């Protein structure tokens, strides 16, 4: 398993940056042959997590990485902020819970959309959410 270094790192400071993250993620997903459905899932999850980074984490960065595995390619997205962190992770991951009048489906929905999901957070120290999407059938590229 080889880890290809970060393909791209995109700052998230404004609403326009979220559009930039979506575009960058879609480009990388297309470049490694993700199907239209998978592209849409990756872009949608990226949109949710980028917005959380901005709205709840006060801004941060998105890293887009590719990882070649034995019979597949993984597209990994790391969203990092140094905001307030999440006090109650279980609550934050509950469908419909939102501290800010949203639908409360971003975090939980991104977890369902992704093949792999990791959430690291500590109150007062920020939040890092990592999601990975695996292109299982490289032959179909």
């Amino acid at each position: 398993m080889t880890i290809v270094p970060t393909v791209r790192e995109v700052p998230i400071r404004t609403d326009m940056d979220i559009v930039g993250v979506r575009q960058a993620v879609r480009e990388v997903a297309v470049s490694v042959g993700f199907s239209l459905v998978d592209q849409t899932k990756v872009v949608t999850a990226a949109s949710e997590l980028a917005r959380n980074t901005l709205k709840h984490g006060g801004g941060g960065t998105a890293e887009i990485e590719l990882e070649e595995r034995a019979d597949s390619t993984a597209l990994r997205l790391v969203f990092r902020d140094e905001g307030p962190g999440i006090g109650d992770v279980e609550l934050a991951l509950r469908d419909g819970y939102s501290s800010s009048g949203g639908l409360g489906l971003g975090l939980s929905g991104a977890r369902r959309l992704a093949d792999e999901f990791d959430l690291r957070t500590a109150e007062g120290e920020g939040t890092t959410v990592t999601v990975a999407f695996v292109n299982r059938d490289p032959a179909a590229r």
Partner: protein
Amino acid sequence: MTVTAQDVRDELAEFLRERRPDILRAWSEANVLSHVDPADTEQESAELLAGVVQAIRDGAEGDSGHEGFSAARSVLGTVVSGSRDGARPDLAALKPPLLRLWTEHRRSAGPDGLTEHAVDGAVALSTAVDTLRAVLLELEVDAGLETIRAQREQLTELSTPVIKLWDGVLAIPLIGTLDSMRSQAATENLLEQIVAQQARVAILDITGVPAVDTMVAQHLLKTAMAARLMGAECIISGIRPQIAQTMVQLGIDLGEVATRATLADALGYALRTTGMAVVSDQHS
């Protein structure tokens, strides 16, 4: 800017009065303000010249704000608005005939004609024409800014057009990234039109939206709810397969909002709702 002495000014004024027909003829021939009707060209040249005379008399040939250039401004304004094809008149062409006539005029005054006075006069005339060019440029810049402003306004409106499909049936095709400003504009636009057109059905078509995340979904739901409060039912159409799958996994529930695969399906549904029937014409 040099201050031209009073006697030079007097002489310039005399020159401009005496040689007026020659100047106007030369200006018309310079083909700067070419109109289909030569009488129009003559008329406009006369107004420009009158302005120049007034400004020079007041020693203000370099001041584009002087009232002498106000008349010129309205003439040049019509020139700017008429030059949509991009061709712009080159007012510099007014200068050589004017200076040639001035030199001739001085020479005819006798052996001492081409003195310092002549040079000062030429400078003043030259400055006046340059000021005309500056006025034209100002007008062109204003017109350009105006065009940009109008286009920007059109774009904001264009991105969220509300289309009347039938009596009581409106459609709003949402396209591209729905940033919060644009989705706000779209909602306001739609609600206004629902009232204005007494619409009973409003179709939100999202064929052109690349991804529906929670923010877009919440926007659609809020719009549908607001429309309902105003007495119109909302239908969401154009949910493509990949978007439908993603929305399901994300956990988005559009609740009571009706959805249809295509805009055509949505229109059929809307017509039935408003009491219309679509039947095929057996006789044709």
